[in-house]
C-alpha cells in the first residue's frame, strides 16, 4: 500500500469518527462557520467540528505546519478533499483569509508577517475582508484613489473602499492603496493590512435591491497603519493584487453553479406552475422551448468545463476557453431567473408577507441578487473585451 493510500484510510477513519452527523450534508446559510475576534458558532456540534479540524491544521490543510497549517502535500490535500466530499462534510471554517490572503502572504509576505497572521487564519481568530474596488474605480481597478501617505514610520490612509464582502462583520481588511501618482496607474499601488479597530476606520452596510446586504463600504479617515503592514514592496501592490484577482474570478464563476439548490429543476417547476400533459409534457410550448434552450445551454457550459479538464489532462488545453466560462455561466443564469419568474407569475415576485413558499422566495431572491453576477468579478463587457483581445487577437482600439 502506498503512503497516499495509507493516508486515505487514516483520514477516512478519522473523519468518520470526528465529523459530527449534523456537520454533514448541505450547508445552510445559517450553518456556516465563520472566524472572528468574538467567534460564535451555529451549534455545539459546529464548534466541536471546527476545533477538531483546527487542531489538525485542516482548516487550512495546505498551509505549512510551522504556521499551524495542515502541512499536506497537494496530493494529500486532494485526498482530504475527496474524503470530506465522500462524507459530505461541511467546511470547518469559511473566510476570505484562508483562500486569498493566506496564499498571498505565503508568496509575498515577510517571515514576521507569516508568523503573525497565518496561525490566526488557521485558528479562526480573525475574520478578514478585502478592500479593492472604489466608487470611482470599478472595472478600471488600477485607477484607485484611496491614498496612503508615507509619514516615516507609518502610512496615513484616507479614502474609501466599496463592495467589501462581510465588511461589517470583519476584523481586519487587506487593501490596495495609492502610495504614488507617478508613472503608469498600475505602479504606485501598495498592498497593505489594516486592523479595522484602528481609529478612523468606519464601515457602512450596503443594502442591495435583493434585500440582502452582505457588502459594505469602508471609510478611512486619517488612519495610521504601521509600515510593516505592507505586503510585498511599496508601490508594487499590483503584483500581489493580480495574483489575488485570479482567485476572485474563479470564485465568481463557482458562484454561478450551484443554484436552484436541492433537487427541484426548472422543468419540475414548469410542470407545477404551467401544467403538463399526462405524459409529462409541459403544456405551454413556448415555455417548454425556452426551458429546453436554457437546459441545453447549461449542459453545453457544463460539458465545456469538462472538456477543458480533459484537455488539461491530455496537455492539449486551449487556454482561451476558460475565459468564456464566467460570461456564459452568469448570463445564462439570468436567463433562467427571468424565465422562472415568468412561469410563476405573481407568485415569483414575493418580497414580504409570508404567503410564498420556499421555491417562490428563492426565485425572487435569485432574480434580484443574480443581477450582480454579470457585474461583479469583471463585468460582461470586460469579459468580452478580454476574449476579443486574448482569444481572438483583435487589435486594441484607442477605446478598449
Amino acid at each position, binding site marked *: 500500500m502506498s503512503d497516499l493510500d495509507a493516508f486515505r484510510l487514516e483520514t477516512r477513519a478519522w473523519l468518520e469518527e470526528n465529523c459530527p452527523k449534523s456537520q454533514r450534508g448541505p450547508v445552510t446559510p445559517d450553518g456556516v462557520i465563520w472566524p472572528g475576534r468574538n467567534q460564535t458558532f451555529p451549534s455545539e456540534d459546529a464548534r466541536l467540528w471546527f476545533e477538531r479540524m483546527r487542531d489538525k491544521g485542516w482548516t487550512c490543510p495546505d498551509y505549512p505546519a510551522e504556521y499551524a497549517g495542515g502541512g499536506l502535500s497537494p496530493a494529500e490535500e486532494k485526498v482530504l478533499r475527496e474524503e470530506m466530499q465522500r462524507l459530505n462534510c461541511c467546511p470547518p471554517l469559511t473566510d476570505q483569509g484562508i483562500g486569498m490572503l493566506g496564499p498571498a502572504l505565503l508568496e509575498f509576505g515577510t517571515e514576521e508577517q507569516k508568523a503573525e497572521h497565518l496561525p490566526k487564519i488557521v485558528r479562526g481568530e480573525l475574520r478578514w475582508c478585502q478592500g479593492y474596488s472604489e466608487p470611482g474605480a470599478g472595472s478600471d481597478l488600477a*485607477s484607485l484613489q484611496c491614498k496612503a501617505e508615507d509619514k516615516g514610520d507609518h502610512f496615513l490612509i484616507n479614502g474609501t473602499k*466599496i463592495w467589501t464582502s462581510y465588511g461589517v462583520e470583519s476584523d481586519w481588511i487587506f487593501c490596495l492603496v495609492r502610495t504614488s501618482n507617478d508613472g503608469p496607474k498600475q505602479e504606485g499601488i501598495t498592498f497593505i493590512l489594516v486592523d479595522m479597530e484602528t481609529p478612523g476606520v468606519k464601515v457602512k452596510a450596503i443594502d442591495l*435591491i435583493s434585500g440582502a446586504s452582505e457588502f459594505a463600504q469602508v471609510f478611512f479617515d486619517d488612519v495610521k497603519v504601521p509600515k510593516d503592514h505592507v505586503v510585498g514592496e511599496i508601490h508594487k501592490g499590483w503584483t500581489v493584487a493580480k495574483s489575488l484577482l485570479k482567485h476572485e474570478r474563479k470564485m465568481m464563476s463557482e458562484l454561478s453553479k450551484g443554484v436552484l439548490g436541492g433537487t427541484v429543476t426548472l422543468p419540475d417547476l414548469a410542470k407545477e406552475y404551467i401544467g403538463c400533459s399526462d405524459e409529462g409534457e409541459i403544456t405551454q410550448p413556448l415555455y417548454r422551448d425556452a426551458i429546453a434552450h436554457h437546459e441545453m445551454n447549461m449542459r453545453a457550459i457544463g460539458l465545456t468545463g469538462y472538456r477543458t479538464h480533459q484537455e488539461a489532462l491530455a496537455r492539449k488545453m486551449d487556454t482561451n476557453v476558460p475565459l468564456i466560462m464566467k460570461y456564459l455561466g452568469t448570463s445564462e443564469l439570468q436567463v433562467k431567473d427571468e424565465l422562472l419568474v415568468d412561469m410563476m407569475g*405573481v407568485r415569483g415576485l414575493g418580497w414580504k408577507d409570508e*404567503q410564498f413558499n420556499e421555491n417562490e422566495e428563492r426565485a425572487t431572491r435569485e*432574480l434580484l441578487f443574480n*443581477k*450582480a453576477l454579470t457585474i461583479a468579478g469583471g463585468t460582461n463587457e470586460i469579459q468580452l473585451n478580454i476574449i476579443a483581445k486574448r482569444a481572438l487577437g483583435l487589435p486594441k482600439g484607442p477605446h478598449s
Partner: protein
Amino acid sequence: MSLVLNEEQSILQQSAAEFFSSVSPVTAFRDLRETSQAYDAETWSQMVELGWSSILVPEDLGGLEFGLTGMGVLAIEGARTLAKSPLSSSAAVSVAALNHCKPSTQRDALLSALASGAKTAAFAHLETAQFNPSIIRTQSASAADGFNINGRKSCVENAQSADVVLITARSPDAGYSDSNGFVLLIDPNAEGVESNSIGLVDEREYADISISDFKIAKDEKLEWNDGAALTQVINTATVIAACELYGCSLEAFERTLEYVKDREQFGHKIGSFQALQHRLAHQYTQLELLKTVIYDALSAVEKMRKDASLAVSHAKALANDTAKLVTTEAIQMHGGIGITDELDIGLFYKRARVLRTLWGDSVYHRSHFASLSGY
C-alpha cells in the same frame, strides 16, 4: 387615429411632469416604504384638486370626460417617479368599469364620489396567478333582499386602502361569458371579506381577496352595459399598465444615458464606448416604437375602435419586452451601484418586473394578437 398629443393633452403632460417631480419624487416612494400606507393621502388630494380623479368620469356626474389618452399621460409621468396613488386602480380602471355599467343610483353616486375624491375604489377581476382574464369562478346567488357571494380574487391592487372593491362575478347557473357577468360593490373591510396583503417586489399594495357567503344588497350589484364591456375594462387596465411600463423604462433609460455620459473608466466616459452606444441606440429605437404603439392603443380604447384589443395586446407585449431590455440594461450599465438599494435604478427594474406580469406577459399577448389577427 391620433399619434400626437393635442394641445390640452400636452399641457396636462407638462403639469403632470412638474407635479410628480416636485410633489411626489422617488424620495416620496422611499418614505412610504417605511410606513404601512398604500399612498400619501395629502398628495392624492392634490391630484384630486387638479381634476385627475375625474378625467374619465362623465361630465353629468361631475367629471371632465377628458379621455383615456390624458389618463395614459398621467400614468406615464407618474411611473417616472414611481408615484403611489389610486390613480390607476381607482381613477382609471374602476371608473372605466363603472362607465361600462348600466346607470343606477348606486353606480352614479359612486362615480361622483370617485370624481370628487370622497372615495376610492379598486377593481378585482383576475383569479389566477398566471394571467387568464376569461376565468371567473366568483359567483353571486340570489338571496333574501340581495345576493350571496362566494369566490376569490387574486392580487388586487390597492384593495385594502379602497372604500369599495368592484368584484366581477357570474350567476351560479351560467357558464361565464361577458354578457351575463356583472359587478358587485363590496366594502373590503367588511366582515366576511378576507383580504391578505401580498408584498411584491415593487412594494405596493396588493391583496388576495377571499369571500365566502358574504351578503350584499340588491342595488350593490351592477349590470354591464353590453357584452363587450368587460373586455373594454380589461383593455383599459392593460394599456394603463403598458403606460406605466413605458414611464419606468423611459426614466431608467434617461438616467442611464446621463450616467454613461458622466462616468469615466480607463480614462474615457463610458458613454463613448461603441458597444454601449450601439446597445443604447437600439434601446432608443425600441422606446420610440413603444411610444407610438402606446399612443395608438390609448386612442384605440378611447375611441372604442374595432381593433382596440389588438392594439392593446400589441402595446402590452412591446411594453413588457422593452421594459425588460431597458431596465435590465440600466442595471448592467450602472455596474456595481446599479444593484444597490441606494440608487433608484433597481426600483425601476423591480416595478417594471411586476408590471410585466400584471395584465399579461408577452407570450399571452402575442398569442392574443395572433388570434385577433386570424392566425
